[in-house]
């Protein structure tokens, strides 16, 4: 289980997150929702180690990793697919996949990734920066699959993509959860996120102001205010 305990965090001079506590239980999907600027990305950055919290602890499977750098957390099973395109634009698709895989399993990983996303298989030698937006996102997502993570954090992975591609990505998320990893998803398609989530957290102006199961939130005013 991933635990964020009483987190305060921000950027030099301003606090963004205030006393955020959040749990991602094993084998479950947690949706983190909230309006623009609420601090969702900041929460994921703190969880993955890209941003140090001013206060609070980050614990994964009982191990306190609050002061660990991102690569150490990644080695222990934390996997953030960041906002935007999480690929190395100057490298080929193949090299991107090589970097994503665990040491020693490169060719095996490339096979697994191309089975999951056949489009990538046709473009192994293409420079990642020249892929379409959807293809780049698939390449970025492949890491969630290859890294053998315990918990995967997804930050708006469907942003700016065509509906067909979004379908494909949600299929992938479904498949990912069936492999037993737990997921923390930030999504703009609220309904779709609620459909797959076991728990929902709503973040507003840096503080959690709703926690519960998806059916509790549906039809509530809070959802409206969120979608509004």
């Amino acid at each position: 289980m991933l635990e964020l305990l009483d987190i305060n965090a921000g950027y030099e001079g301003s606090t963004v997150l205030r006393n955020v506590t959040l749990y991602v239980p094993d084998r479950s999907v947690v949706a983190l929702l909230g309006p623009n600027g609420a601090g969702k990305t900041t929460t994921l950055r703190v969880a993955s180690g890209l941003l140090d919290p001013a206060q609070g602890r980050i614990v994964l499977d009982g191990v306190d990793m609050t002061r660990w750098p991102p690569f150490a957390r990644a080695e222990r099973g934390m996997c953030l697919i960041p906002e935007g395109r999480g690929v190395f634009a100057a490298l080929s698709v193949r090299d991107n996949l090589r970097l994503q895989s665990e040491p020693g399993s490169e060719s095996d990983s490339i096979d697994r990734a191309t089975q999951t996303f056949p489009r990538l298989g046709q473009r192994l030698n293409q420079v990642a920066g020249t892929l379409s937006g959807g293809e780049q996102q698939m390449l970025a997502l492949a890491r969630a699959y290859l890294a053998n993570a315990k918990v995967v954090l997804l930050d708006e992975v469907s942003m700016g993509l065509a509906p067909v591609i979004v379908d494909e990505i949600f299929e992938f998320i479904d498949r990912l959860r069936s492999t037993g990893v737990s997921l923390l998803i930030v999504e703009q398609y609220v309904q779709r996120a609620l459909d797959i989530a076991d728990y929902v957290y709503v973040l507003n102006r840096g503080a959690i102001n709703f926690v519960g199961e998806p059916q509790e939130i549906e039809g509530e005013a809070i959802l409206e205010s969120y979608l509004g």
Partner: protein
Amino acid sequence: MNAFIVAVILGLATGSIYALAAMGLVLTYKTSGIFNFAQGAVAAAAAYLFYTLRQSDGIPWPIAALISVALIGVVGGLLLERMGYALREAPVASKVVATVGLLVGIPALLAAWYGSSSRPFDHFLPSHPVHLFVNVGTDQIIIFLLASASAVGLSLFFRRARLGIGMQAVVDDPDLLSLQARNPIVVRRWAWTIGTSFAAVSGILIAPTIGLDAPILTLLVVQAFGAAAIGSFTSIPRTYVGGLIVGVTTALSQLYLASHSGFQGVPPSMPFIILFVVLLVTPKRLLLEKGTRLARRLDFAPALNKRISVPTTLVGLGLLIALPQFVGFRLPLYMTGLLFVILFASLGLLVRTSGQVSLCHLAFAAVGASSFAHFESFGIPWPLAVLLAGLVTVPIGAILAIPAIRLPGIYLAIATFGFGILMQRFVFTNRVMFGSTDSLTAPRPHLGSFHLGTDTGYYYVILGITVACCVVVVLVQRSRLGRLLRALGDSPVALDAHGTNTNFVRLLVFAISAGLAGIAGALSGPVTGFTDGLTFDYSISLLLLAVLALSGRRALASAFIAGGLLQVVPGYITNATVSAYVPAFFGVAAVAVAVVPGIGFAKRFLVARRVRERRGASPVAERRALVRPEVVVAGAPLSGTGRAGGRNGDNRVAERVEMARLGAHQ
């Protein structure tokens, strides 16, 4: 035919050494986005250390080589990694200043410690000849094989090894690499260690052929830039081939051209001709700048309050007018000091205002100096000759605007660096420039009963022209052109999108800057009465950039401070040991100034600006919150602050959180 083959073999051997240095250079550039102008200086340092260990301390050469490469390559590499890290978000100009500072500082330190005279450097590799068609030295074969093996190994490493691929990734997005369970610092350390070790090896290998001489060793390895350009600064195999091409063409031109009068300048400048031409013809899409993704923009000094600037200017001017009364025989120091003010002000226009780095500013001055002397000898009146000398320099500046238009940031700096050396090697040595004796007379002006020919008289002439040039610079800064230049430094793309012809802006700024430098050059001759090519050594252009970086961010104030630092202050140092360290000090200080803003001042400045932006945005958020319905938690309205879950917020949320956690345990 035999001579041809011998030349080719010689070229392959020296080319192999260039290739080693160039591959190391490409490796670190690709990984860090820092183009290490000081690669040659690192090589020289390794050669000096090797010399000391072996020839002074008598350590056997393999051990001496190992120690030198380990100390310079590994320790130096790790230090450079720190420097590169501090500069990761710096604008191109700061990155150039840092490594140019090293390029100035390291050879100066070596010269201060070891003395500036060249020393013989014993051969250490076995050199008995082996007969392959012609006689080939064993050392040549060893060097060739070493470079080839390194090229193959490094190419495979880059293509196959995870660390190698990581090196290509880390420059663009170290955070993403870290998210992929790779430690970006370790990746960078490896790259710098390998790249710097390559430089160290090349220095040790090349030293026996030329002896221990810091500037020459440095310059020889700088020839590797041409090789790196052939490899588009990215491809290891092409860089290797590039090294061989540079070596062989240089050797062949030595064989065929050196004896023809008028072409003697060609062989030694061959690598720089290759560098400049390759940069001019390489398709733009191949010359992608590394490491700009994280780069922040240039920051400008805020305009000074008139209540401060006007009195300061007046007092300063008054002091300058009164100066001849106080300084006595040191007045010529102040004359050249004022000329350097013009040089610095015009260089600042390029580097500071528009973010374009020129490493060949002295070449403009040289053209001005030589043209002035020629015009004078034709009997053209003195003031007109100075003006014309400035005008003649303008087209030279315009030539440099071509690479400026074609090439982004760092490549322009490299091109101007090559151009500066090319001018010195090829053009200055030509009779057209400074005559057959490399010296032209440059008289002072005469004006009836005014004694302009005296030191004091000529000082006032220079002061008048300096003030005029400063006025030009201020006018340019305040005009529309100045705004365009600042926009150019800030974001060329945005300026293009605005429909402004950025090419014309670049052309204009290079022309103005070169013209001013030409005038400074023209005025320099009459200080001593004659002018020669040696005065305008390319290394002074590097020093100019380093000292300008030390002197603050203000257009005019920095020019005066820099002129004083570079020309006047050293004139007051009488202690020989201290004077020997002055150039080293400038180099090292420039590195510090370039690196420190990355961690200290500028960053704080930058963050302050971001915070301000966000504060500016907050009223909108405030308003949005007013329009929004009350936030609701599980059916119950929250308190108006909307800060549930906080320490004193609604504890229902805390309850829910707890439930979610307990749910997890089921």
